[in-house]
């Protein structure tokens, strides 16, 4: 077993903050990890103009919401397993309840609903104003298993944390 017995919520937050910073696309966008309470993660995308899809009406590109849901659901998977494994997205479904609007941060929360031997089932929610859901996502992830997870994957997630 790895040297990551039971990370605290602060260690998880630091580990996932590092995870989204290592991913070039989310680093570029400046996505922030707000809190982690396994198996739930909350992230916040600060406003920036290149998130727009409809400049005239000031609406966010729908694809940004898919991106945030995929990232948040995938991060929830990491902290929802007994120990982190590499889990590619099998499929993702996004329901657009209302458009997200320009100038405000975009929040996303995701959690693991069920873990089986081969799959991790997740769901996520996007909002800008509390209680006012912008989009809902369902993401299913494949467990490649410990054998197909690179050695040191779990340890690498917490590397910086443990060295603090």
């Amino acid at each position, binding site marked *: 077993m790895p040297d990551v017995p039971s990370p605290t919520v602060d260690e998880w937050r630091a580990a996932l903050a590092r995870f989204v910073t290592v991913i070039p*696309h989310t680093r570029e966008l400046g996505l922030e990890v707000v809190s982690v309470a396994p198996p739930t993660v909350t992230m916040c995308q600060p406003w920036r103009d*290149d998130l727009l899809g409809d400049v005239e009406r000031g609406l966010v590109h729908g694809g940004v919401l898919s991106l945030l849901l995929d990232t948040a659901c995938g991060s929830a998977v990491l902290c929802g397993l007994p120990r982190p494994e590499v889990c590619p997205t099998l499929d993702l479904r996004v329901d657009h309840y209302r458009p997200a609007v320009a100038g405000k941060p975009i929040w996303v929360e995701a959690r693991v609903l069920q873990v089986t031997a081969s799959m991790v089932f997740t769901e996520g929610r996007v909002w800008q104003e509390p209680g006012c859901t912008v989009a809902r996502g369902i993401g299913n992830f494949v467990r490649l298993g410990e054998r197909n997870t690179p050695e040191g994957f779990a340890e690498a997630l917490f590397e910086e944390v443990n060295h603090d």
Partner: protein
Amino acid sequence: MTEGFHDAAWLARTRAQGDVAAWLERLPYARHIGVTASPDAGGDGLVFRLEPHQHNIGNILLPALHGGVVAAFMETAGTLDLMLSAREPRLPRIVDFSIDYLRTARVVPTFARCRLLREGRRLANVQVTAWQESEDQPVATARLHLVLGVPEPSDA
């Protein structure tokens, strides 16, 4: 009146000219990830292209494109393809989106082609297939439902 999607005359004109580039110019996030479109050499539709920008990477170990970026690319392709192939100028608004990831998307150019499976009076169903080296080995398939909005007539 500013030119743009909500100007019915502008929308009709760019559509008649097949000027998808003018539409993409007005989609900052699609520009950010590097989406372009060109006429399909072997047919009458469009082939969309996603640039393999470094900032589109989601997995540095493989490396592979971010699944969410591939999703955003396919949503953009499906929406613009519908705007071009719909019976009349329409402003589609996405209702729901579903994507199946079939293979790892490597950091190379990605292409997409769309099929309008149903165009009703209010709703459309668009299927999108994305591939890299070979079209018969798709990296993902996606499906969009969109509401067809009617653009405002210009007040000019």
